[in-house]
């Protein structure tokens, strides 16, 4: 199949789905549940171009500055993205550090393993009320929830990566004169990073899920908050608009990270990575 045909087919499929949606939405009773594409677009446009879009930045109780945007959406979007990126980076760093540490100290890993399994078995979403009580309705509780999801994904990958380094590789580098620290830097860390880089996509997805769910469960700002407000008034079009905004962000992250992944794991055997990488 040529490139043009492929994209034509994809465009046709999109058009077909939108037509089906419009056709369903023509019925007023049904439109209450499925919304209307036109109304969703209008809502998106309202978000982007009208309303109060100011965001006050505080440090402790001290007002730093106030950002002004041309629409309601921007401050909420900015908050959600900030939370996601923070959860992603902090979860990544902590997962990497703890994974390396436990991977290199098998005794400790054996002592801790039931606790780690238990912690990972806890459905993370149920932690949200706790986190809100501890950290308040601000971004900290959302970031924390995102971290609990990201941390374990990264941790298990890194731990596995460290444990599965080939013994011949280790023996070779040791015989070539590496001390323990060099062994970590030259063998363990790159092996662990290899696993991490190949799962960046999944990991940012988890950060997103944690953050938005956190917003649903108690917040004053963020896309999750907007969706929650709309849901309370049975405004299906606004809910759908919120979902579309989130989807676009997720896709954007996906594209950015896929590029990063390719660059960082050039040493890996490249497989055909067109569809369904997740």
């Amino acid at each position, binding site marked *: 199949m040529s490139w043009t045909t492929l994209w034509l087919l994809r465009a046709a499929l999109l058009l077909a789905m939108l037509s089906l949606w419009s056709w369903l939405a023509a019925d007023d009773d049904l439109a209450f549940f499925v919304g209307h594409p036109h109304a969703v677009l209008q809502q998106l446009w309202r978000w982007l171009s009208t309303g109060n879009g100011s965001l006050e930045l505080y440090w402790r109780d001290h007002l730093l500055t106030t950002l002004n945007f041309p629409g309601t959406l921007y401050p909420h979007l900015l908050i959600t993205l900030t939370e996601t990126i923070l959860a992603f980076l902090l979860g990544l760093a902590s997962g990497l550090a703890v994974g390396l540490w436990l991977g290199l100290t098998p005794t400790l890993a054996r002592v801790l393993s039931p606790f780690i399994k238990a912690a990972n078995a806890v459905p993370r979403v149920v932690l949200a009320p706790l986190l809100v009580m501890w950290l308040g309705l601000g971004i900290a509780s959302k970031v924390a929830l995102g971290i609990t999801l990201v941390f374990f994904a990264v941790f298990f990958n890194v731990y596995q990566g460290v444990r599965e380094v080939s013994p011949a590789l280790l023996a070779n*580098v*040791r015989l*070539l004169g590496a001390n323990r620290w060099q062994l970590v830097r*030259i063998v363990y860390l*790159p092996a662990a990073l290899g696993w991490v880089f190949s799962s960046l996509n999944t990991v940012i997805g988890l950060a997103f899920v944690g953050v938005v769910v956190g917003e649903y469960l108690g917040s004053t700002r963020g896309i999750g908050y907007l969706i929650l407000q709309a849901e309370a008034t049975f405004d299906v079009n606004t809910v759908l608009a919120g979902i579309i905004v989130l989807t676009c962000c997720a896709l954007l992250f996906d594209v950015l990270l896929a590029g990063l992944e390719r660059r960082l794991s050039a*040493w890996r055997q490249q497989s055909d990575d067109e569809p369904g990488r997740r």
Partner: protein
Amino acid sequence: MTSTLALEMLDVEARHDRLLALARVDLTVREGEFVCVLGPTGCGKSTLLDLAAGLKPAHGGQIRCHGKPLLGLNRHASYMFQHDALLPWRTALDNVSLPLQLRGLDKRHANQQAAQWLRRVGLTDVPDHYPHQLSGGMRKRVALAQALIHNASLLLMDEPFAALDAQTRQAMQQLLLELWGERRKSVLFVTHDLDEAITLADRVLVFNAGPASRCIEDIRIPLPRPRDTLSLRKDPESAALYQRLWHALGHLPPTPTNDRG
């Protein structure tokens, strides 16, 4: 007298769990000598190299390297493994320069020397390739360059060319002979290929099938050096040696201690 011995094993035993892999092995490698260990697959030949490298402790007997008892990792040894031990996330050049970088040489100088070694093993076009982009034979060349640049006085090789096709294997043997001839380091080379042993070695130690394998014959290979892998094929003397090794391998006495623990 011990000073002329690069490696000496006296009455060495090794076990895997409770299974006796090596029983009462006596073995010496003189300075600058190329010794092949020949034996059927699974006779504990790899274990022998692990012992010599200090990767595993012996369960009995004594191992000396340059006259000193071997304690822990053997710092005089360089090991070429049967399977790839190149770092997959480093390019060919970075893999070869690794031993120099570990020694604290700055990256520029290390890479200069590494590039020279890559040329010497016949790889000029691929310094920036990662191992997965290289063929099996090319990876072996990189591994050989890495082992040689380390400049250890004892080179341990565990069937390094076994996985290659026949032509590539012969080319690699020729390359090894040429590079070894320049510096004459001591080599302990494990193989199950009779031709390979005759082509390369000064001395061939024949081991019997495991468990509890040991050296059952010590055969000198008096073929003149430098050797040419191609002409050795038709050489009557090497044919006679082949027969001798064949008999040594084929008419094995029954293993005396066949206890499986």
